[in-house]
């Protein structure tokens, strides 16, 4: 991968990967680290890109692995028990207009924030499939490969996530 190729790769997939990192990491600094590390790691691993694999899927796979590793990493105190931190900070700062214009004209800014907060509050095992499916538009087999879980489990988790989100968002979405 030469400079131009990497530049094109960043240009093409940067927005998608950056958005994914932001929704995944919550904290902006952590998201930027994850985003940068994803591309740098991808350059290292470029020889492993399968010819049949699309580049975005490969980048997401690298990103998810880095994220999982980071969660387990030495310097991060990993509590086994205790409350999970809600990751609603960064979403409050901006809800770009483009998101409103897309498919759901009735989606108000408040709704978008509510949905994003609810997704951010999901446990990782549900949040990752939701982001890969709804944000990155990946198919179930691709998600299964990236998360290294059976396709059926992806489906179960998506179903469970939808159920949980619906419950969580009932009041907001009925208004």
């Amino acid at each position, binding site marked *: 991968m030469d400079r131009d190729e990497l530049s094109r790769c960043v240009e093409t997939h940067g927005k998608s990967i950056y958005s994914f990192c932001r929704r995944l990491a919550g904290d902006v600094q952590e998201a930027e680290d994850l985003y940068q590390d994803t591309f740098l790691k991808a350059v290292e691993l470029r020889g492993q890109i399968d010819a049949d694999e699309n580049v975005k899927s490969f980048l997401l796979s690298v990103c998810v692995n880095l994220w999982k590793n980071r969660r387990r990493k*030495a310097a991060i105190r990993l509590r086994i028990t205790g409350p999970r931190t809600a990751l609603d900070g960064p979403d409050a700062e901006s809800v770009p207009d483009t998101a409103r214009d897309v498919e759901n004209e009735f989606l108000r800014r408040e709704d978008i924030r509510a*949905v994003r907060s609810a997704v951010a509050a999901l446990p990782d095992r549900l949040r990752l499939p939701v*982001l890969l499916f709804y944000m990155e538009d990946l198919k179930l087999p691709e998600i299964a490969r990236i998360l290294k879980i059976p396709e059926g489990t992806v489906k*179960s988790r998506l179903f469970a996530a939808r159920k949980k989100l619906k419950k969580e968002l009932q009041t907001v979405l009925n208004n």
Partner: protein
Amino acid sequence: MEYKFDDILYGALEPDLEPPRRLNDKILQKAFQAEAGVSAQSLSDDSFDPDTISDGFSGLAPDSERRDGNSRARFLLRAHAVMLAACLALALWSITALAARHCLTLRQVASGLQDDKLAEAFSGEGAITVNETQVFGNYRITLLGVVSGEAISDYRFSENGVPQSDRFYAVTAIEHADGTPMPDAGDAGYGDEEFMVSPYISGLDPLSYNIVTFGGGYSEFVEDGVEYRLIDTGNVSAFADRTIYIGVSDGTFYKKGPFLFDESTGAIMRNKEYDGVNALFVLPLDSALADSVAAKKLIDSTDAKLSDADGTGTAESETEKAASEWAEQFRDGSGALDKEKLAELCRVLPETVGTFAPDADGVYHFSWRSEEYGGGSGSSSLKYLFPEDSPAGTVVSLGYSYSDGDLSTLCMETLTLNEDGTVTLAVYVPK
């Protein structure tokens, strides 16, 4: 509103955040400076990164892996690595692997985890160095030592908003007996080999009283192929008038196989029949450390958590695992369910059976209700429900559920694809 739910998620989660230009420029700069052979030290944003001394860390390696923690702690660790490398250069290759093992002391492990205060504590009089090794299959498990006390770490846990400062710390080293390195943080297999390291107390059933219920956690890192783990939990030294163990078993959470608990004597033993890792070390603690008041407080706090189903990590996870395993056994590999196995091991709840046709947009809206098992509903289209090209008769799971951590309420929602394009929902429960 419900049928729009998928669209709402798509809309709200659309990738819409542009990465800052400076970030993209930095990626390009770092990637190609590294390829051009510029050292990571000169690439660093900071003036000096001690990591670059010892391991020639590539400039492509993730930034955060170099930036974590304070530099002093990492320097101590890396300085040691430099000295070790120099020594190894003089040694025979045949002993290199062994020499590289057990190179870190308790203090160095704490320093490696950026906890200077704990590193001091591990160098103090209260620390107990054990250095006992047990081997199970391809794993060598070493308990390096323990220390306990009030506010002896740079980090402090809070439980339900209450800071916990009276803590117990133990350090283990886990390595492959055949000398192959344990996967490091950046390796593909990192985290695949899961272990639970926990203190256990004689007289207390380890199923209920373990690192999870004692409000514990852990930190770990891999150095020279050895995985070092520091556990941090409520101060179990208060039980020093009993036998206190450190157990290391495979898996993330406590399970019944590795250890046996004799209810009559209170003794905890290794299960010799267990085919896996079940190291058990007895701590040589001074019984003078026993503190009946603190011990009772720890038990009371643990019991309170155990009586609160939502607050019990162990119980919840064990239940979730059992439920997941139950549901997974019916999958046939293609994403569908094995109908014969389903019929053999489950019964259907007749009141939940219903057939649903798609709406004009091809979306199925299904629901079920049972007095005993509650109910559920969902909407989705065929392509998300069934594997591609599924023939009529294919049965898929929509998921399983149970309420309040109670597996007796476990049930699985299924959909069957019919010849006429409708789907039939049925909820199955274990026979």
